């Protein structure tokens, strides 16, 4: 992917470090990561459990604060932002997709998708309207009033993707989004990510499955908190 000269990278890290203190010992979960991800990229972050890939994604998602180093999101240095500004970034610029979907029980698909719009300060009519549109785009127009318990795993993950998209973010952060799904459903979900990426949304995908990573354009491999490989995906898979 060619980066235009004057456009800042969407994600830019410089010497990013995240330490944990466990039992009196320092664990460098992320240990000096410098990389940049441009708008419109589809990146798979790979690594074994404990490699630091999830910690890195939590930092990029502003869910966690780095111990050292810098993280710039869409040109803004996150170190200078307070917790309210970070909440705003999570709300407007980032959409999260989790392995366990993390939908609210006893809450309909429509209301689940509308949650981020509450924090964006939208009125209830507009929230419902936008949530309905986004769910319809996910092919769930007949499931609006279903609670998560009445939806299949694939449908739940599509509700979760709709929720991530409803605020029209710049990027999706997906942490093992297919980890709880069967092969066919996984392929469908990856197809959705590819479509969204084609529409211009940056997708950052954390996975430990090599074949899931093949849907991306670029593969970054983490080991012991460091980037050990950062290469384009040569034989890219296309879903469906």
């Amino acid at each position, binding site marked *: 992917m060619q980066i235009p000269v004057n456009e800042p990278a969407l994600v830019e890290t410089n010497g990013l470090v995240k330490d944990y203190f466990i039992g009196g010992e320092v664990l460098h979960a992320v240990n000096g990561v410098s990389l940049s991800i441009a708008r419109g990229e589809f990146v798979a972050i790979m690594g074994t459990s404990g490699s630091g890939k999830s910690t890195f994604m*939590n930092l990029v*998602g*502003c*869910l*966690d604060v780095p111990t050292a180093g810098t993280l710039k999101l869409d040109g803004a240095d996150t170190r200078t932002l307070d*917790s*309210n500004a970070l*909440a*705003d970034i*999570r*709300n*407007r610029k980032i959409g*999260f997709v989790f392995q366990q979907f*993390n939908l*609210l029980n*006893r*809450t309909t698909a429509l209301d689940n998708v509308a*949650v*981020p719009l*509450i*924090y*964006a*300060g939208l*009125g*209830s009519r507009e929230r419902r309207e936008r949530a309905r549109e986004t769910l319809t785009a996910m092919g769930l127009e007949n499931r609006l009033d279903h609670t998560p318990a009445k939806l299949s795993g694939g449908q739940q993950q599509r509700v979760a993707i709709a*929720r991530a998209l409803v*605020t029209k973010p710049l990027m999706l952060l997906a942490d093992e989004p297919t980890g709880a799904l069967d092969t066919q459903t996984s392929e469908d979900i990856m197809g959705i990510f590819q479509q969204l990426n084609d529409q211009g949304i940056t997708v950052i995908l954390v996975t430990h499955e090599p074949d899931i990573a093949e849907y991306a354009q670029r593969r970054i491999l983490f080991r012991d908190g460091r980037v050990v490989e950062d290469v384009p995906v040569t034989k890219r898979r296309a879903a469906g």
Partner: protein
Amino acid sequence: MNPRAITGRIAAWAVNVPIAFTALRTNLMRSILTTIGIMIGVLSVILAVAVGEGAKLSVSQSINTLGSNMALVFPFPDTDGARNTADSGRVTMRDAIAIQKSVPGVFDIAPQLTANLQMSVAGRNASTSGLGITPGYGRVSNVDTELGRFISEADIQTAARAIVLGPTVARKLFAGFDPVGQDVRVNKVPFTVVGVLESKGSSFGRDNDDLALIPITTARQRFATATLQGPDDLHVLFVGFDEGIDLGPAKKEMTRVLRERNRVQEGQINPFTIRTTQEFMEESGKVTAILQMLLVAIASISLLVGGIGIMNIMLVSVTERTREIGLRMALGAKGSDIRNQFLVEAAVLCVIGGLMGLIFAALISSAVQKYADFSAPVGVGTAIFAILFSATIGLIFGGYPAIRASRLSPIDALRSE
């Protein structure tokens, strides 16, 4: 703040109400139990206020049974509580007439002698407090007869052996028969019953109908007690004032007249005591206000316990829903959004409890009014107070758990199981 921003603020809070109801329904039993705690607290506070209001009401009613706007003059020195029996005081009939003549606003006077009366008729006995009065007593104290007639001017002139019975005495002696015209022996002297008073009920357990009235002249002739110093001394004098007369200046004027008549020197205490119904009202108002505050303070303890219940349940709720908090933060909730969500949840619990407490209090209050000789009214003011009070309890006791929730780190909350 412009109107748009205000409606925006309200909408931002209102968003949390359905979230709160969903959360409270999830743990329905727990929510109900917590609500009952608040309900009992609010119920007891409202009832305490209502009992206080009822006490005020019955005090002012019992003062009104005396007669609404009047002064009482007693023949003992006004030493402000520290009574010294050595200086005995006096109030005489001539004092009464002087007051009637020279104090403005007096519409009538009721000079009185008191005596314990032992009455018997056909083997039935009754003992009561007797008042020797003039017809003025009826006008000043606002009493009239139910049967027969009142003590008349002619009765006074002739020192007639005529007696007017209070309803309680009439019932004791005549057991339902019409006593008017019947003979009755009073302290072994034969009297004729000329009338029966209308009932004035009771106040604070004291029966206002347990008395008998005789002409003041008869009382002086036949039952005069040793405490009287002269032939026209009185045990007490009621002075009735027109409606709207301020009894403060009136009391000053009466004091001036009586001091002059008794030739009291500058710096000497009054050989009489004047109390007005206005003073009774003010003093008993203070007493009932203290009583009410005391009751409310005691009742507030149960509300405090209810509030601690709220705090406990909200802490449990925050702990159970840490993951949800993390998720909401990931979706863009600020700390203040999370705080408000839990505050609204606590306030909803409390307001429901408050409403239930209010309904029960209103039911109990109307039952008391119906079946007991006491009213404990629950007014609109009390209702509004109760709702605001319980919402405040919710905000106070829900505050700590809510703030704790708002300070969670997104990633720690999201990772919690």
